[in-house]
């Protein structure tokens, strides 16, 4: 009964939008003969296109978007900083480094091997980053993601250096561009289900972690263990999504931010909506990137960057205004500038 009561209007909109977008994503593509009608008539080619191309693609979009949103939310809870995401803590870049090393060292491999490489690199990178940041005790909220971005830049510079040395720049350029067109490695994306389920299971703990170390210790939580678990989840999601579809900027940043303004910071309550919301956003971006130069398609990273950048700027300005209106300082101009830089 509680569950039915908790279905609200906002959730209904997000989910119905999700259904519409999934259907749209299934029906849009280079082969125009795939329509609702042809599917109902049992046209074999249409079904084959759906099964082998469009469904995996749509699932990849949904899973990677939902996963990155969850990773972003956990990152923000752990660091208690609304401007953190896997991409502003070096996780995505380190995953990229790991995957490139897997490519260079082991040649073509199963997606899972690459993911494992990416996972370990991302985990080590985020562990290093969080432990250093915690020791520095930075008061200003903006500096942490700024340092994180520099750190990420450093890691990707190392990746570039290695690629340059092994003459793999072209490969790197291809991998470093987020796209849902690489159907071959989509199987990896299903790995994301594991950390997401884990995150749902530990949602209450992550919410408590977000309230501070003393607070979580008071409630009998092993703070360090939960933080480590969070970083494992983040690294796994980053690595799997990087292997399957490449980096998707902004998703881990804006989706958690917007969801928490609507639903608050109780992760357990907002997680489902967060995932649907993230999936909606990336589905829209994916559909747009498929339609702009139809029948060809653009890199989804590009679309996400453009739309995400605009949406995030709008969001920051809106919260600033609202903050002023309420007479509170929720987002300062300097934070707005920092987020604009991304």
């Amino acid at each position: 009964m509680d569950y039915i009561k908790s279905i609200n209007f906002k959730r209904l909109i997000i989910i119905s939008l999700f259904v519409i977008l999934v259907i749209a994503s299934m029906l849009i593509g280079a082969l125009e003969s795939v329509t609702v009608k042809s599917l109902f008539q049992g046209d074999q080619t249409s079904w084959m296109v759906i099964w082998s191309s469009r469904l995996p693609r749509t699932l990849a979009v949904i899973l990677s978007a939902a996963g990155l949103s969850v990773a972003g939310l956990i990152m923000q809870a752990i660091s208690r900083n609304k401007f953190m995401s896997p991409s502003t803590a070096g996780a995505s870049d380190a995953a990229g480094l790991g995957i490139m090393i897997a490519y260079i060292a082991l040649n073509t491999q199963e997606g899972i091997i690459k993911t494992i490489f990416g996972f370990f690199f991302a985990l080590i990178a985020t562990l290093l980053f969080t432990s250093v940041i915690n020791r520095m005790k930075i008061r200003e909220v903006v500096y942490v993601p700024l340092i994180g971005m520099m750190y990420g830049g450093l890691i990707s510079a190392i990746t570039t250096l290695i690629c340059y040395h092994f003459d793999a720049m072209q490969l790197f350029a291809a991998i470093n561009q987020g796209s849902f067109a690489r159907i071959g490695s989509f199987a990896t994306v299903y790995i994301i289900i594991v950390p997401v389920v884990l995150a749902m299971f530990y949602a209450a703990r992550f919410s408590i972690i977000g309230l501070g170390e003393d607070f979580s210790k008071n409630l009998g939580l092993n703070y360090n263990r939960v933080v480590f678990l969070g970083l494992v989840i983040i690294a796994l999601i980053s690595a799997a999504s990087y292997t399957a579809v490449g980096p998707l900027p902004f998703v881990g940043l804006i989706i958690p931010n917007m969801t928490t303004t609507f639903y608050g910071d109780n992760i357990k309550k907002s997680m489902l909506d967060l995932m649907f919301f993230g999936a909606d956003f990336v589905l829209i971006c994916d559909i747009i990137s498929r339609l702009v130069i139809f029948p060809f398609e653009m890199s989804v990273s590009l679309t996400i960057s453009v739309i995400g950048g605009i949406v995030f700027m709008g969001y920051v300005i809106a919260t600033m205004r609202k903050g002023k209106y309420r007479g509170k300082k929720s987002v300062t101009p300097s934070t707005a500038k920092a987020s604009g830089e991304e």
Partner: protein
Amino acid sequence: MIEIRNIVQSYGRNRVLDDVSLTIEDRSITALIGANGAGKSTLLGVASRLLPVISGCVLLDGIDLRDIKTREIAKAIAVLKQTQSIAVRVTVSELVEFGRFPHCGGRLKQVDKDKIEESINFMDLDDIRDKYIDELSGGQRQRAFIAMILAQDTRYIFLDEPLNNLDIKYSVEMMKIIKRLVRDLNKTIIIVLHDINFAAAYADYIVAMKDGKITNRGRVKDMVTCDVLNNVFDHKFNIIEHHGRRICLYYGSRKFHKSEKMLDKRGMGRQIHMQKCLHHFSKHEVSKAKMKKVLEHHLSAYMHKHKKHDYINKMEQREIRTREHVH
């Protein structure tokens, strides 16, 4: 019962707690007082397992805290540090739900829900239960956190400066609530307070700390005395008794004289003034001639200032003489 035994705690070379031992009485309010850096918050942190014990031990009902699972400690001891820095968007009822975590691990059962309702009602938060805590006033916010602690259902509650950033009305309200926790719910409360007057008015026991050591401890009436407080705070205190309650004055001396002047209208200031002079003489060895001179000077200046009638002056002189004899 919580027993703190021979705790030594240090940050680097700096010894913050130096061989501190303390037993906390059940069903009472114990206030920790002391100057900044005396080690109050550190002691609170150690006693409530937020800080790891380096040397010594903390016993909960005779069992070392290190031998108890953290989840089990969380059912017995709750601690609330300064809450103003927590900038998280959760509603009041969600915050209170967090308090049940040690009991249910995040999955609320009927017992937990009942306890949550009880805490919300006890703290009178029913109207604002769906508001986000960052939208609340300081007092409401603090009440929401106390409700969470109540939902945690522990026997011991440690509070670190709960009156910080609260204005007078909410501070008094908060102390009354804390008093009610002991009286109605049989809690044991250990509280770090900055304002000695709040400690004097609401606590049962006061523990005074200085330079990482406990200098004095005892009931309020034994603790709120000039000697103890002057020593603990390195500052001159004046203590007034008002309706059987002790109030400390520790502001600038000019202000103190002002208050004396006000009292003088009822004829009380003079007495206090005399007592002060005599107290001064009893402490320092002064020759009788000098004593008389100072006293006369004091009084004539005082009388001149207040333009008293001559006959009062004469009475004062007589009083001095009698007191001299007594002395």
